[in-house]
Every structure is written in C-alpha cells, then in structure tokens.
C-alpha cells in the first residue's frame, strides 16, 4: 500500500472528503431552509428579548445619558470626602438641562432607588436650578441641606455607573456602596433572600407531593391494559386542556373559609363552624393548588419510563424468592429512577417560576419570587431589579441542571 498517505479520490478525481461534503451540503441546506422560519422566530421573539431584558440587570445608562456633566464629576470623587464645588457646578448644569428636556422625573426616580427621599430633592431643586448662581455648592445646600450630605452624593455616584452591580446586589439583599464595596442590607429590608428560600421550599414540597401522588398513578397506568390506560391517561391530561385560571379559581371555591371542603369538615365535625381551617390565601393554598396543577408533569415522564419496564423483571425477582416489597424496591424502583428524575426536575423547575396560582391563592405568605418580579415589572417599574431577580433565578435553575447532570446524568432522563 504505497498510496495510503494521499487523499482517497472519488470516481471523478475529486478528493472523497470534499465530494462527500458537497453531496451533504445540499441536503443540509434544504434541512436548514425548513427550520429557518422557526429558528428566526425563536431568536427574534424569545432569545433576543430575554438577552435584552437580562442585560438590564447589570446595565443601566439612564443617569449617565441624561446627566453627563455630573456623571463625569462624581466619577473622580472618592465618596468619603465632602462634595466639591466642581461637582455641584456640574450638577446644576445637568439639572437645568434635565428640566428643559423634561427628563428630570426619570433621573429623580433612578437616584431615589439608591437612596429613598431623593426624588423630591431632585425635582424640587431642578425647578429653581436655572436661578442658582456660583458658588453652586453653597447655593444647593441653601435650597436643601441634603445636598451637603455625603450619602446623597454617594447615591448619585452609584446611579451614575452604567455597568452597575447594584441591582444584582439588591436581588440578594446586599447593598452596593459608592466606594465599590458590598454590605448586607439592613435587617428590615432583607426580603428577597427570604422569598427565594420560600420559593425553593414550596417548589421542593410540590415536587415531593406530586411524586408521592403521581408514582402510584403512573404505576397503575403502566400496568393496565392499553385500552383502560388510554382512557385513564385522558383523565390525567384533562386538566392540561382546562385553563389554568379556571382550575385555580376552582380551588378557591373548594378551599375558602365558606368553601366546599370546610363545609364538609364542619358537617363531619372535624372543624367547628366558628373555627374553620384557613386552607387558602396562605402557603397551604399555594401548595395544594400547585400540586394539583403540576401533577401531570410528574405522571407523564414516570408513565413513559414505567411502560418500558417489562413485567418479567418483577416476576423474575419473585420467582427467585423475593417478597413483593423486596422485588419492588430492589428491582422495579431502581429502574423507574430515570422517570423520577425527569418528572422531579420538570415539576421543580416549573414550580420555581410559578406565578398565576400563588398570585391568586397565595395571600401573604404564599407568594413566590415570580410574584415580586411581576411587582417590579408592572407596579414599581423597576425593570432592572426584576431582571436581576430573574437572572438569579435562572442561574440557580441552571445550577440545578448541572447538579442533576453530575448526580444522575442528563442522558439518563426520559421525558417521553
């Protein structure tokens, strides 16, 4: 074999590799053409918005764009010495400009996020900024003594940063200081971490409950004759085809103080009429409703895995002398683990971002992190903080995926 070093040629003399690529290119191009519309749609309608929104969690150029002079001035300030005349002059220039452009409201809102109470300081001062004369620092302090405080200027310095970790810090109850250090938020203002923990707790409990309820159902479905199991499967899927809102409101009717369940409790003497159980507008309500709604997501992966476990395994175990419980735990259960993994991961990740149900039945202590994200999106209009909270959640979920992959292996998962 003397010509092994040279490339192998196709019949027409072109190298075989090149020829193969040419042939494959056409079929690949056609396949790509078919998926392109969907790909484009997903990129434009899904991936780009997510990237843009998430980028807001660390990027906020509003102050720097609207107040260019003071941004430059505070950048050089060390944030511990008293404010200088130069900074004050730049601030007055910017304030005059912002009032003319009618952007002072946005600026005031932005700074107010770093230090509450500064909104009125900005709007009030801006109204008369045009009449102020040098020396500006004295003039500003004359208008409001807050202008002489270091913390006011520190808040401005933080707000002026374009690439800004303050939102992420606040998403995990930390404070970003003007000198670049972080510290924990005051005791009374630590709300996000607590909410993250509650979200995890609820998601975990919902996962456990759906597993406990779903496993026997999936087992039954997988062992019944096909005709019966198909019928039962439709019953499992029925909630899927019903509006989420309808199902959640149905739970309100079931669980409320004068609801069906409490009435039954009273009738059977489990509760007294004056002292009914509070099953809704709290964590209990969120847990009950979410468990019900997410149950199919647990049953379906379990069912699809269990269907592939032949009954001969358990029979073999029994024929070898294993009691039914031993046969189950040592032979059947280990083989259903891929289904448990898939179902648990699916339910947990869906639960961690659940929104409508806790919003409707959660009351005060049944709220989850998604509800506060919604609050910042629609009420406080602090999109940056909403994005930061979302980013923390996303990173956490990706971490869980990674953990699952390390422990169980993602290729071990069967979704259907």
């Amino acid at each position: 074999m003397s010509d092994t070093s040279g490339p192998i040629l196709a019949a027409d003399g072109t190298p075989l590799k090149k020829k193969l690529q040419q042939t494959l290119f056409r079929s690949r191009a056609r396949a790509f053409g078919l998926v392109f519309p969907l790909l484009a749609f997903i990129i434009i309608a899904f991936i780009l918005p997510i990237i843009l929104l998430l980028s807001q969690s660390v990027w906020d150029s509003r102050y720097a764009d609207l107040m260019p002079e003071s941004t430059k001035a505070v950048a050089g300030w060390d944030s511990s010495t008293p404010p200088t005349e130069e900074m004050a002059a730049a601030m007055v220039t910017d304030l005059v400009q912002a009032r003319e452009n009618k952007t002072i409201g946005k600026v005031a809102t932005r700074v107010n996020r770093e230090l509450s109470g500064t909104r009125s300081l900005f709007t009030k001062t801006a109204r008369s900024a045009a009449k102020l004369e040098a020396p500006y620092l004295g003039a500003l302090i004359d208008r409001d003594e807050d202008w002489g405080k270091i913390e006011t200027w520190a808040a401005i310095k933080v707000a002026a940063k374009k690439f800004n970790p303050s939102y992420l810090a606040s998403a995990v109850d930390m404070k970003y200081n003007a000198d670049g250090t972080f510290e924990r938020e005051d005791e009374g203002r630590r709300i996000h971490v607590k909410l993250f923990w509650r979200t995890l707790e609820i998601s975990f409990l919902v996962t456990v409950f759906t597993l406990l309820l779903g496993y026997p159902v999936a087992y039954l479905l997988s062992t019944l004759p096909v005709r019966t199991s198909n019928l039962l499967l439709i019953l499992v899927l029925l909630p899927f085809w019903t509006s989420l809102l309808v199902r959640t409101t149905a739970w309100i009717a079931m669980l409320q103080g004068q609801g069906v369940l409490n009435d039954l409790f009273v009738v059977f003497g489990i509760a007294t009429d004056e002292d009914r159980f509070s099953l809704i507008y709290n964590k209990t309500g969120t847990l009950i409703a979410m468990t019900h709604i997410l149950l199919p997501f647990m049953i379906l992966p379990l069912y699809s895995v269990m269907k592939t476990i032949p009954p001969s395994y358990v029979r073999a175990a029994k024929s070898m002398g294993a009691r039914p419980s031993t046969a189950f735990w040592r032979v059947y259960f280990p083989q259903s683990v891929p289904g448990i993994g898939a179902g648990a991961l699916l339910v947990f990740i869906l639960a961690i971002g659940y929104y409508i149900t806790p919003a409707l039945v959660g009351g005060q202590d049944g709220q989850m992190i998604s509800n506060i994200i919604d609050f910042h999106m629609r009420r406080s209009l602090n999109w940056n903080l909403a994005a930061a909270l979302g980013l923390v959640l996303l990173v956490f979920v990706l971490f869980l995926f990674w953990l699952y992959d390390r422990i169980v292996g993602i290729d071990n998962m069967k979704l259907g």
Partner: protein
Amino acid sequence: MAESESDAAFVEFERVQKSYDGETLVVKDLNLKMPRGEFLTMLGPSGSGKTTCLMMLAGFETATHGEIKLGGKPINNIPPHKRGIGMVFQNYALFPHMTIEENLSFPLEVRNIGKSDREAKIKRALDMVEMGTFGARRPAQLSGGQQQRVALARALVFEPELVLMDEPLGALDKQLREKMQFEITHLAHQLGITVVYVTHDQTEALTMSDRVAVFDDGRIQQIAPPDQLYEEPENSFVAQFIGENNTLEGVIKEIRENGLALVQLDDGELIDCTPVNVSQPGERTRVSIRPERVEYNKARLQKGVHTLKAEVLEFIYMGDIFRTRLRVAGNDEFIVKTRNAPDQERLQPGQQIEIGWLPQDCRALDA
C-alpha cells in the same frame, strides 16, 4: 410412605382450567403428572395455553378451577416467591441495573444466605455455564447467548428442584440455539433437576425432552417421549404439528382382523393402514405418512407392500438428503425424503414411478 419416590408425581395438574375473561377457556381440563427429574416440554402453537400453564405453575396466574400440586402439596394458594421454583424468561429478565454477580446474588440474598456461602455458590453457578470471568459486567455488555447462560445460572444458583423455562432460546440464532439446547439438557440431567420447558419449536422439543406434551386448543393432544410422538402420533393435529408429514384423504372400508384398516383414497386406490383414532367403516380419515418412510427404489420395497402410482413434480438437492415432490392420489404436495446414498436414484421431473411403505408407517387418523 406407601408410595415410592418414583411413583409419586412431583408436579401434578389435576383437572385444571383457566379463563381470563369468564367467557372462553384458555386451558380446558388439564391433567398432567411429572415424576422427579423429568425434562418435560410443553409444545404448541401460540395461544394453545402452554405459557398459561407455565405461569400457573410459577404462581403468576391462578387456576380458575382444579388443583396444581408440587411434591404432593397443593400450591394454588402459595404466592410465587414461596414456591421455590427457578425460572428462565423469554427475554432473560436480567436486572439491568445490577452486575452479573449481583444478579446471581439476588436470590441468595433474599434467602438470607451468608456472604461467603453466596460467593461460593455464585462462582459455582457461573463456572457451570462457563461465565466465570464475566461476574463484574452488566447484562447490557453481554451478547444474547451470554445473557442466556447467566439467566440459566441465576435460575439454578439457589438450587431449586423445579426449573421452568419460557421459550428461553427464542431470541438466539440457529447455531447458538442448537448449542444451548445441548447444554441445557446436559445440565438438567447432571443436576437431576425437574424441568418444564415451553417452546413452539418442535425440533427443540424433540431433541431436548424426556417427554413432550403437545398443546392445542387448551388441551394436551398427546404426551409421549419424542420418538413415540414422532412415529406414533395419536391424532391429525400432532401428526401435522410434529415434523413433516404427508396426508392423503379417504374413507375407512373395513377394519381387518389383523388390526389393519383398509382405506379407500379419494381417487379410488385401496391401501392398508394402521388405524389410530378411527373405528367405524365409512368414517372419513386422514392417512399420514412420514416423508422418509416412503420408498420408491424397487429393490428396497418390501415384498407384498401395496404400491401407488406417482408423478415426479420437483427434485430438490439438499446435500445430505434429496427432497422430491410428487403427485400422489391427487395430492401435489406429497414429499419424499431420501438419503444421499451412492446407489440412490435421482428422479427427474415428469418421471412416472411407483411408491410404497410399510402399513405400520401409514396411520389412519381423524379427518
């Protein structure tokens, strides 16, 4: 202790019936006695009830009526895990999440056998099937034949007296299947275990078993040693199902005093047959003759044997044998098998010949 060990049936089915839907009987009135140490094969087409019988014996199905006894004791109400019966499944049913050793260890662990004892038994069982070096592997890493051996070792490792096998060689290729057939029978006799073996492959049944029970339509059609089953089928079903068979249709003319029956074939020819499950003159019958018992070489034809005219339609050379298709008494599918001997004549299509056979090889069965 009146009964000696050999008389007492080890496995016994007594008037057993089984229905799944309450409308049709899958097993109709099954009676069967097996002595200890026997290798019995249940043979039959799919849906004949043979697997159901096996499952009832294993305890995975309950008999609708009748009694199943093991070692003289009724076992109808004993759950499968307390019956102590080894079982080999069609698809091996090796636990995929356990290694080979763990698979074999399982039946010993549930019997609370100590670790050192377990290891010794596992080693012995694996060596027995020549899989001693594969203990640490997982079932998915073994070939079909190797998995089959492990399944066998697993069914034997806890030393059951009775082992059930449900078409254990069905998934193997022909060569491996023949090798395993030999090994399984060898092991069974060596260990002295009683085996109930289910298959739909008649060659397997004939080569492996002490006795074969032919199932059809929920009943045992015949239960006999292989040679008797092949040479003396008791009804048309068994004759058709076991081996290749030629049939000629006709009517019984008379039953003679020498025990033979005179049969008039549909084309008018008269032949002598051994009557099996026919008794009345005038009754319709199917005459069955094995292809290798038909002779056309005049020198070999015994004197006084009744001969029939035949036309050669096809001659197939198969190496060790010749297979010739004839037209005999209106039947175009009449097959003759002859050994490829130096003096054996090779027939040509179109040739007119005379064929004959011994009356005892020609059995008049139900139509």
